[in-house]
């Protein structure tokens, strides 16, 4: 009996320690989430201006002139998968990998190359060496930088122009709200694919830019290539921001429910322990009383 209460007490203590940990992690994630959200907010005016510019230039130039607009049969495609470096964030990583795998399998007859961001994806595919991985990048999430995103986007641009790949797609967790993430697989190249997505957004926004005759410096064709390339870099940057914000949100929710589970468990075990203690006291009293009665 005494043994049992001691066992219970030990379990309660260990759960309490774990709860302390999960609570601390939740707070850290909340702070990081706020930072990530600030970064997303900061990017918004730039995104709006760049999109407006892009749509304007694209309308005014001959698409056949930019190699980034070339539409070929998609024989070789690239998928960039953005995951987290760390776990303990619910099904965040598992979901995105599952979606990426499903997407990969759906590309029948196409050669799919993967580029992995985040250690979790790297770990997953290390155990599956038959799948072609171009490159893995880890440790990006500590500080999401425009430079890093630009470098990555540029690599794919060059591959596309050189004909090494016919399409580039980007899979990432979009930050919808603190409790919800949405997995998005977005086309980056050929640009025509991305343009379709943009057009839809534009129609929703219903912002007619009007047909003002702009002066272009340099001429629209040259400018177009540059704007597109900036836009691609920005899209990658944006995906990284979304993904980090979503990661912190996911971790925060996961740690919150872990803390709640822990305190529920502590309550349950404490109740059980008290019952046991009560039971042992009761038995002792009965023993004393019946002993006294026997004597009397």
């Amino acid at each position: 009996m005494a043994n049992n209460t001691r066992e219970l007490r030990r379990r309660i203590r260990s759960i309490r320690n774990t709860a302390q940990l999960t609570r601390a992690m939740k707070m850290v994630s909340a702070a990081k989430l706020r930072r990530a959200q600030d970064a997303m907010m900061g990017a918004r005016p730039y995104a709006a201006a760049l999109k407006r510019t892009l749509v304007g230039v694209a309308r005014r130039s001959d698409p056949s002139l930019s190699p980034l607009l070339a539409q070929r049969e998609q024989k070789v495609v690239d998928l960039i998968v953005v995951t987290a470096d760390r776990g303990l964030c619910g099904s965040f990583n598992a979901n995105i990998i599952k979606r990426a795998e499903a997407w990969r399998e759906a590309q029948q007859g196409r050669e799919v190359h993967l580029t992995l961001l985040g250690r979790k994806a790297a770990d997953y595919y290390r155990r599956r060496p038959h799948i072609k991985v171009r490159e893995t990048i880890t440790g990006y999430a500590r500080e999401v930088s425009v430079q890093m995103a630009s470098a990555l986007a540029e690599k794919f641009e060059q591959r596309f122009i050189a004909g090494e790949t016919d399409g580039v797609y980007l899979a990432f967790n979009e930050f919808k709200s603190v409790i919800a993430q949405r997995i998005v697989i977005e086309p980056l190249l050929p640009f025509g694919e991305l343009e379709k997505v943009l057009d839809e957004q534009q129609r929703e926004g219903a912002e007619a830019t009007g047909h003002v005759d702009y002066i272009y410096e340099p001429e629209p064709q040259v400018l177009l290539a540059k704007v597109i390339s900036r836009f691609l870099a920005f899209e990658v940057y944006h995906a990284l921001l979304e993904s980090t914000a979503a990661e912190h949100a996911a971790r925060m929710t996961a740690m919150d429910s872990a803390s709640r589970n822990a305190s529920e468990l502590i309550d349950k075990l404490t109740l059980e322990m008290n019952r046991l203690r009560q039971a042992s006291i009761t038995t002792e009293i009965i023993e004393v009383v019946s002993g006294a009665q026997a004597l009397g």
Partner: protein
Amino acid sequence: MIPSKIHLEVVTPERRVFERDVDEVILPGALGMFGVLPGHAPMLSELRAGVATCHGSFGREVMAISAGFAEVTPERVTVMAETCERAEEIDIARAEAMVEELEEEIRKPETDPEIVRLRLMKHLARVQAKRTSAGS
């Protein structure tokens, strides 16, 4: 009608650096520096690394920008730069050190001079922006 002010907005992927009504904007275009006054014809220009200046009722604001674009309409100028720093945010000692380092690097045979040159231009612009601003 010609508007009396230009609404200038300078944005980078990281943040909105500057937003105010100004009288005049001078930008480092890819084909050379150009100035914008209220009522300018609509224009879209590529920018190279350099110093952007604007004048307004608040005085003068000097910024160092690296490559990007500028969209000009009669009443509005939007600068989309890869990076942008206001002169007061620039640490001149560090910027100068960067320039020296890059000047050293560009002489090495194994480096790609084009990439280093772009970085050098960016940091030169920072030094220049700080000096211009301090000289006023």
